[in-house]
């Protein structure tokens, strides 16, 4: 009985905290309309400037949006969904269109994050532990990612730098997208390959 009461009090406090968090997160971005954040949502805006993260109307974000201290940030359109544990890390520019569904544990990272040369990597990682995120990209490669309207990314998908995912494309679960995916196609696997055309053909099938 006592356990039940304690549990209910904890639940009420959690709801209150998530509401406070929602307001806090809304103040860190530019919202074009009514947006919502889930319980797992996080925003790391290292540039501090809200205009680096733009989110469209009626979008629900339950993942982690991170903007590095350099680059043009993240832009998400209307009616989108970003699932639990999904990470969108922008060191260059990530553009997500309208009505895009992004499932849980999806990684969309437009940078290599570290140097290829191992001594350079070791030094910059040690510096990062001391001083936080680096102020410039240095020799780390970055390239913008574009995800067009009506695309659907299943869970555990990785989208690497410089990739464009076409309109209405579907990416199957666990796929690692290393190259551009054309409009209205289904791609799966590691590395992701197009396995099906989703546009109706001349016979109407």
């Amino acid at each position, binding site marked *: 009985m006592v356990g039940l009461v304690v549990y209910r009090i904890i639940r009420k406090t959690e709801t209150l905290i998530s509401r406070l968090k929602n307001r806090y997160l809304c103040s860190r971005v530019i919202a074009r309309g009514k947006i919502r954040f889930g319980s797992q949502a996080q925003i790391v805006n290292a540039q501090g400037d809200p205009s680096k993260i733009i989110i469209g109307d009626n979008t629900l974000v339950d993942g982690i949006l991170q903007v590095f201290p350099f680059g043009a940030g993240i832009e998400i359109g209307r009616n989108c969904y970003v699932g639990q544990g999904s990470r969108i890390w922008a060191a260059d520019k990530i553009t997500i269109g309208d009505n895009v569904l992004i499932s849980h544990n999806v990684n969309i990272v437009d940078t290599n994050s570290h140097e290829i040369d191992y001594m350079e990597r070791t030094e910059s990682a*040690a510096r990062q532990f001391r001083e936080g995120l680096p102020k410039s990209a240095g020799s780390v490669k970055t390239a913008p990612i574009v995800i067009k309207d009506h695309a659907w990314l299943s869970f555990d998908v990785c989208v690497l730098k410089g990739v464009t995912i076409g309109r209405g494309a579907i990416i199957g679960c666990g796929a690692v997208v290393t190259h551009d995916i054309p409009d209205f196609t289904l791609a799966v696997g590691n590395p992701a390959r197009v396995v099906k055309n989703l546009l109706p053909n001349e016979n109407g099938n």
Partner: protein
Amino acid sequence: MGIKNKIYLLAYKLHRKWLGVVCRGKNLAFKRNIVCGEGSRFYMNSSVTNLQERDKLVVGSNCHIRGELFVYPYGDGLRIGNNSYIGDYSIVRSGGGISIGNSVLIAHGVTIIDTDSHETDPAERDRSFRNLIKNGHPKTPGSVKTARITIEDNAWISYGVSILKGVTIGKGAIVGAGSVVTRDVPPYTVVAGNPAKPIKQIPP
């Protein structure tokens, strides 16, 4: 921004401060169960479970752990060198023996498990699983296969990678995002894919 919003923000920031205090307590609690060097830090989502003696889980100095470290009641335990990083939701479970070198970068969502975890025979698996639920982890691996995993200095493991038992990842090697590493990775090599295959060499 209205006064109401400001109060909300203040309340949330106080909550964040409270979480910081909890996290500091967590650090102290973890460090009692393991051998830990100077300047290592465990973050909010991290967890440490050591089912053996204290010296079977060794973390060097200046490590940053955001993931889960787990040592089964059998095996040689887990050793992590200096200046290494383990990202959020990464899982390192040792039932045979895992050694991670110095300055190793492990991103988020990486799974490193050096044991099969269960038996291959269905009846035996069922029996031992019921026993596990009832009595906790068994004291011996039984017929579960285990094999050492070694990750050498300066390696870099990208996000979403799985590393299976018996694998050695060489010095300065890079494992690409979402790969499944089933075989040894030579030093100064980039591997990617499922199963992970060499893509190119990096001159040391």
